[in-house]
C-alpha cells in the first residue's frame, strides 16, 4: 500500500498540493483524476522523488519512507513512466533499459540483461524485442520499453502519467490489457489521467483532485462519469456534445491534390483533396504526425511556398500563393495546435495577445502608426467577457493564465475577427473539462452561424462527436471519408492505422 499523508507543496505563490492524503492499495489499478493544474502530477512526482514535499509523509506498507530523489523511489520499489519518454533513439531496448542500472562489475553483461528483459516482456505480454532499436519502434512500443525499464528495476508500484495521450485507440486497448495483467500478477498501478472513459474502463479505485486538494475517493464500480466530472469541476458538467443536424451551404474551402513536403523533401501531405462548406464541421482524424499539422499550416499559409503544391481555393479564389496576412484578411481564422508556440506570445499581456494577427487593421490604429489603445482595450474586454477568460485582467501576461483560459483567449481572438473559415487544431489539448464543454459549444455555435470549420484533433471522441463529416488521414493521404455518427470507433481506428479504407457518399 502506497500512502501519501498530508502532503503539501508550494511553487512560489501557487499551492500545488494542499494537505493531499491518498492511499493506493496493493495489487489494484488506481486512477488519479483531475483537471490540469489540480495537482495530480505534482503529487505523483513527489512520490517519485522529483519534488520534495514541503510537509507531509509518504509510506509504503505502513512504513514511512524518505524519498529524496528518483533513486530513493526506485529503491523503494516505485517506478514512473512519464508522458515524454526518456529513451535514447539510437540505442537498443536492452541498452536503454540497463542505462543507469548496468549489471555486473566493470564489464557490461548485455546478454544477461537481454535475457531478463525478454523474460519480463513475455511475463507481462509486452511483446518487445530486446535487440530492437528505439527509433524503429512505434510510440506504443516505446511506452512499453519505459514500462520494462521500471519492471527491470523491480518496481512493484508503477506510476503512469497520462499514458494514453500519445496512443492510437488500438494501442490504448493493448496498454490496458498489459496493465491489467500486471495488476493480476501483483503489481500496483497508479494512472494519472483526465479522461473519464479511461478511468471507468481500467481502474479499480479513483481519487479525484481539484485545486491541489483531494476532493473525493470512489470505488470505480460504484461511480459514474457524471459523478466524477462533477467532483473534478465542482459543478454539473455537460459531457455530451449537443448539436442539431448541419445545414451546409456552398463550399468555402476547396483543396485539390494538395502536397506538402517536409524540409528534407519527404512528403507529409500527399495528394489530399476535400472541401469544407458553409455551416459544417469537417473533422480530420488520425494518429498524430500523419500530416495533420502540415495540412492546416499549408491552408493557413504558414508553410514555405516551395514546399506546397496543389490548389487551395477559398470562396472560389486561389489562395495557394497568398501570404498568411492576406489569408487572414480574406476571412480565414486559425486556432493553432500549439498555443504556446504559435497562438500566443506568452510574455506579452492579454491586450497585445488579443490583437495578434489584426494589429494593423485600421480600426485598431490611429494616425502616424500609433495603436489605438482604447479600441484595443475594448476588443480585449469583449473577448475576455464573451469567452469567459479568467482572470479577465487585460494587463496580465498570457503566461499567467491556465491552459484552458489561454485556449479560450486564442479561440476568442480568432472568432472575434468574424471569419468565414476557421481552421481549428487540437482545440481542447491540455484544457480542463469545464473549458472543453465551453469550447465545443462555441464551435457548434460557429457552425450554426454559417461558418465553415475544419477541425483537427487527436482525440477521436472529440472529432467524431463534433464533426458532420470526418476525414481520416494516414501517412499524408486520406484513408477514408466517413459519417462520424454512424461509423463505429473501431472502424475509424483501423483506418487510422491502416486496417481498412472506406468512403461515404
Amino acid at each position, binding site marked *: 500500500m502506497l500512502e501519501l499523508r498530508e502532503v503539501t507543496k508550494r511553487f512560489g505563490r*501557487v499551492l500545488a498540493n494542499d494537505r493531499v492524503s491518498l492511499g493506493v492499495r496493493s495489487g489494484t489499478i488506481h486512477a488519479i483524476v483531475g483537471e490540469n493544474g489540480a495537482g495530480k502530477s505534482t503529487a505523483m512526482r513527489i512520490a517519485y522523488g522529483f519534488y520534495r514535499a514541503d510537509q507531509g509523509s509518504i509510506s509504503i506498507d505502513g512504513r514511512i519512507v524518505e524519498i529524496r530523489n528518483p533513486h530513493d523511489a526506485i529503491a523503494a520499489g516505485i517506478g514512473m513512466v512519464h508522458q515524454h519518454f526518456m529513451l535514447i533513439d539510437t540505442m537498443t531496448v536492452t541498452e536503454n533499459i540497463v542505462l543507469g542500472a548496468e549489471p555486473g562489475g566493470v564489464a557490461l553483461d548485455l546478454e544477461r540483461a537481454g535475457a531478463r528483459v525478454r523474460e519480463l516482456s513475455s511475463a507481462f505480454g509486452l511483446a518487445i524485442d530486446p535487440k530492437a532499436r528505439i527509433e524503429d519502434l512505434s510510440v506504443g512500443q516505446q511506452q512499453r520499453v519505459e514500462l520494462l525499464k521500471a519492471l527491470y528495476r523491480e518496481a512493484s508500484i508503477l506510476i503512469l502519467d497520462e499514458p494514453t495521450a500519445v496512443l492510437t485507440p488500438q494501442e490504448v486497448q493493448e496498454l490496458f490489457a498489459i496493465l491489467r495483467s500486471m495488476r493480476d500478477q501483483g503489481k500496483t498501478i497508479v494512472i494519472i489521467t483526465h479522461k473519464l472513459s479511461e478511468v471507468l474502463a481500467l481502474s479499480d479505485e479513483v481519487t479525484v483532485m481539484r485545486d491541489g486538494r483531494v476532493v473525493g475517493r470512489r470505488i470505480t464500480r460504484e461511480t459514474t462519469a457524471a459523478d466524477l466530472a462533477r467532483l473534478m469541476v465542482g459543478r454539473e458538467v455537460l459531457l455530451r456534445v449537443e448539436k442539431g443536424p448541419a445545414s451546409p451551404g456552398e463550399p468555402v474551402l476547396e483543396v485539390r491534390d494538395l502536397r506538402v513536403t517536409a524540409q528534407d523533401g519527404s512528403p507529409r501531405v500527399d495528394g489530399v483533396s476535400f472541401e469544407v462548406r458553409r455551416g459544417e464541421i469537417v473533422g480530420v482524424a488520425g494518429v498524430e504526425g500523419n500530416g495533420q499539422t502540415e495540412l492546416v499550416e499549408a491552408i493557413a499559409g504558414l508553410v514555405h511556398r516551395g514546399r506546397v503544391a496543389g490548389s487551395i481555393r477559398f470562396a472560389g479564389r486561389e489562395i495557394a500563393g497568398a501570404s498568411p496576412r492576406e489569408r487572414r484578411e480574406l476571412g480565414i481564422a486559425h486556432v493553432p495546435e500549439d498555443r504556446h508556440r504559435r497562438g500566443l506570445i506568452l510574455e506579452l499581456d492579454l491586450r497585445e495577445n488579443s490583437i495578434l494577427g489584426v494589429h494593423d487593421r485600421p480600426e485598431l490604429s490611429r494616425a502616424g502608426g500609433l495603436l489605438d489603445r482604447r479600441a484595443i482595450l475594448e476588443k480585449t474586454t469583449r473577448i475576455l467577457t464573451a469567452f469567459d477568460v479568467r482572470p479577465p485582467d487585460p494587463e496580465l501576461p498570457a503566461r499567467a493564465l491556465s491552459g484552458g483560459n489561454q485556449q479560450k483567449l486564442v479561440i476568442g481572438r480568432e472568432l472575434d475577427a468574424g471569419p468565414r473559415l476557421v481552421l481549428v487544431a487540437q482545440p481542447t489539448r491540455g484544457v480542463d473539462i469545464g473549458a472543453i464543454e465551453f469550447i465545443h459549444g462555441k464551435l457548434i455555435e460557429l457552425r450554426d452561424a454559417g461558418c465553415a470549420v475544419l477541425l483537427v484533433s487527436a482525440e477521436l471522441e472529440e472529432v467524431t462527436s463534433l464533426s458532420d463529416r470526418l476525414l481520416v488521414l494516414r501517412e499524408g493521404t486520406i484513408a477514408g471519408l466517413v459519417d462520424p455518427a454512424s461509423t463505429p470507433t473501431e472502424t475509424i481506428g483501423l483506418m487510422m492505422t491502416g486496417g481498412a479504407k472506406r468512403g461515404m457518399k
Partner: protein
Amino acid sequence: MRKTLGRAAVPLLAIAAAFALGAIIVVLIGDDPVETYRLLIGSALSWPDGIGYTLFYATPLIFTGLAVALALHAGLLNIGAEGQLYVGAFAAAWVGIVLAGLSPWVLVPLAMFAAAAAGGAWGAVPGWLKARFGAHEVINTIMMNFIAVALTSYFTQYHFKEAGDPIMQTGPIGEGARIARLGGFIPGLPERIPLNVSFLIAIAACIAVSIFLWRTRWGYSLRATGANPAAAEYGGIRTGRQIIIAMTLSGALAGMVGIGEVLGYRYRFYDGFSAGYGFTGIAVALLARRSPLGVFLAALLFGALLRGGLFVDIFTEKVSKDLVLVLQAIIIIFVASAAGFRLPFTGSSKGEGKV
C-alpha cells in the same frame, strides 16, 4: 509604480552588491574603501565639472544602450554598435567637411542624418544576412566592427587627414556643421565642458524609442517577432522584414553617437575615438533590462563611473581606474545571473509542471 519598482529591484541589488564587492577589493589592495567611494561619487556629482562630464560621458552610452536594447526587443543581439558608431561618426564628419559651405540650417540636419543613415546601413547588412540566410547576427556584427574600424581608419589616413598632421584625424568640419555646447545655455556650466546638444537628442531618442516600441503597430510587430517568431509569423507579421528593420534602427541609434562626438565635441573625426562605447552599450542595455528609461539611468551610472574613475586613479595611492571596469563587470554578472536564475520559474512550468 509597484511594477516599475519590482523590475528595478534586480538592477538596484546588482549595483549594491557590486559596490560591496568592490569595497572588499579596495580593502584587499590596501586602500580605504570609504575614501575611494567618496572620491568616485564626489567627483562624478560635483557642480559643474562632475555633472557636466558625467552627462557628457553618458551621452554616447545612451545611444548605444538604446541601440542594443531595441535589437534585443526583436530577439537580436547587436554586438556591432561599435562599428556602427564609427561609420556614423565618419559619415557625419564627411558631410561636415565636404559640404562645409552650406548654411548651418541645412548642414547640421544633413550631418546628423548622415550619422544615423550610415550606422543604419551598417546594421542593416547583418540584419539582411540573418533574414535571408539565417546567418547569425552576433558573428556578422562582430565582423562588421572590424571592417568599420579599418575602413574609417583607412579613409582618415589616406584621404581626409590634413598634410603634416601627426595625429590620425580628419581635417575639421565646417563651422556651420557644429552643434552648440550646453554651457552657453545653462548658467554656471562653463562652455569648456563638451556636453552638447546631442545629450538632448539622446533624451529625445529614449522617448521616441519608448513610443515606437509600445505605442505603434511597427513596434508591436518588432516585439512580437522578438518574443515569439513562430507566433508573429502566424499573426501575419513578416519576421524577416522585422529583423532587417530592427537591425537598421539599432544601427542608426548607434550611428548617432557621431553627432555628439563629431559635431559637438571634436569637430572632426578622430581615429579610434570610441572607448568601447558600443560594447559598454551592451552592459547598459542589460542593466536597463531593455527599457529606454532604464537605458538613460544606466548610462548615467556608467557615465558617472567613467568620470569618477579618473579621480580615483589620480588621488588614491593604490586603486586604479580599472576599479570602474571591475564594478561594471560585477554589476553585469549579477544582472545576467539573476535573469538566468529566473528563467525556469517564469517558464510554462508552473504547478502541474507538464509541458
